[in-house]
């Protein structure tokens, strides 16, 4: 049994009904895919299978044979992040980061599928994902901004966000 992950083939040694999540993490060391609830409830394990977001914890690995599996590693690298990854950085849409890989792949499918920048429809699209840290607001903003990427100056982002000059001095 052979699966394609981020453009590379892998010979699976686990049994066919092992979850795709286990194969990715334990066999292939693709640890961006997070084991949250392992019962379909949190979205942390989400990967793209032929471009569609799927919960890898509920996906028997055998069903992914013949399909293209994509994780965040397949979307961009630290030096060259995808537009959605940059938008997450720009909007500070992650804190601990546990939910982030699942949300980034889900957002990628949403944006590529022609999703709208309306915050309610973004919320609907990512409603199956739990984030304990951010309060979602910045995630919604990041996804909406990625939809509007033509108006979104990605080049000014990361530096802008991380470079804050502290104004010293007295009471404000």
């Amino acid at each position: 049994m052979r699966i394609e992950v981020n453009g590379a083939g892998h010979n699976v040694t686990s049994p066919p009904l092992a979850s795709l999540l286990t194969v990715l993490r334990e066999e292939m060391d693709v640890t961006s895919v997070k084991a949250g609830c392992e019962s379909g409830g949190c979205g942390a394990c989400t990967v793209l299978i032929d471009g569609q977001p799927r919960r890898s914890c509920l996906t028997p690995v055998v069903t992914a044979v013949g399909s293209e599996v994509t994780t965040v590693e397949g979307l961009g690298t630290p030096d060259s992040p995808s537009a959605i990854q940059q938008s997450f950085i720009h909007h500070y849409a992650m804190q601990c980061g546990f939910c982030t890989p699942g949300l980034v792949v889900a957002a990628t499918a949403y944006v590529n599928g022609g999703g709208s920048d309306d915050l309610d429809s973004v919320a609907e699209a990512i409603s199956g994902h739990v984030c304990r840290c951010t309060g979602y607001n910045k995630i919604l903003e990041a996804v909406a901004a990625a939809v509007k990427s033509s108006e979104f100056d990605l080049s000014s982002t990361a530096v802008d966000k991380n470079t804050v000059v502290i104004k010293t001095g007295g009471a404000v």
Partner: protein
Amino acid sequence: MAVHRGRGIAAIEYPTGMNQNGDPSQAWIKVKPDGRIDVFSGTADIGNGAKTIQSQIVADTIGVPYEWVTFDNSNTDSSPVCTGTFASRATFVAGKAVLKAAREVQRKLLDVAAQEMEISPEDLEIEDGRVSVKGLPDEGMDVGEVAGAAVYGHGILVTGTGAQLNPYAAFTDPGTGEVDSPPHAAISYAGCVAEVEVDDVTGEVRVTKLTQSYDVGRAINPSLVEGQIQGGAIMGLGLGVLETSYPYYPSVEHRGSGFGSYYAPSPLDMPDLETIIIENPSEDGPYGAKGIGEMANNSQPAAIATAVYDAIGVWITELPITPEAVLKALDKKAAGEDQPRRDGKMVIFDEDLSVNTVGAGLQWTA
């Protein structure tokens, strides 16, 4: 049979910079020959942005660009002691340690630059990676040149160390818990206004808006502060209306048996959020900062409870305010069973359940 709207308010104060356990944070900094800065600190970044904020403090204190700073908290062998990221202390306490270390580095860089330029260090300043003569911005040299001169000319390693320790506050009276020094170094204040819609048929409470203001001392990184406040708001919303491990505590029956039976807020539970960041500097925190971690999810449940009272006229005195709790309270009201009263006053929080009553038999131990 209708949806009722209500609005409620709650305010809190929160102590940061816990003194009672003698918890230290320490940092050391070295300067590379090109002027780039390595910071070693034991502070874990759990998503709160401790690395970013401490790097900002170092960069601004020394006077170099943020990008020059590498923050290494990768292991506890190479980094000095930091008690940890808890009690809203990462910026307030550990940030003070890196601030002190950065001041020492700046002083040493100015000493080297002063010798190179044959001028008194008091007449020099560092800004944006450049040492210059005060009042004569064109007279000077780059920090990289100064650092190179230190290594290859003067034969010295430019380092700085900093430690912050609020001393252990010993009990002077174990009976009352009185201690011999202030238990906390800074107090933050916050207020939250919750707006809700309560359905008197289903009992569902929907939080539609949270307007919150936080005194953070100084928002060293406003985006990160906002992230803490927004994240706390949704966690507070969860505590207010959704989340409980033991719905019938102290009975453990009906305890959640899996992820699906514990209701954390989802993106669809998001209310409108309005956030006001108030900068009311503290004396002790780095650049006047106070902690904004744990206080961020304290005021929402109480504000929601008062909003529910405003909407339907019943006090719910236990969290979370579930549909079941709302409907039971409405039934009681309809049956004329009033809310508990004592001495003619409404008792919102039953004394028998209060901390004072529960804790009456306990002795503080030193």
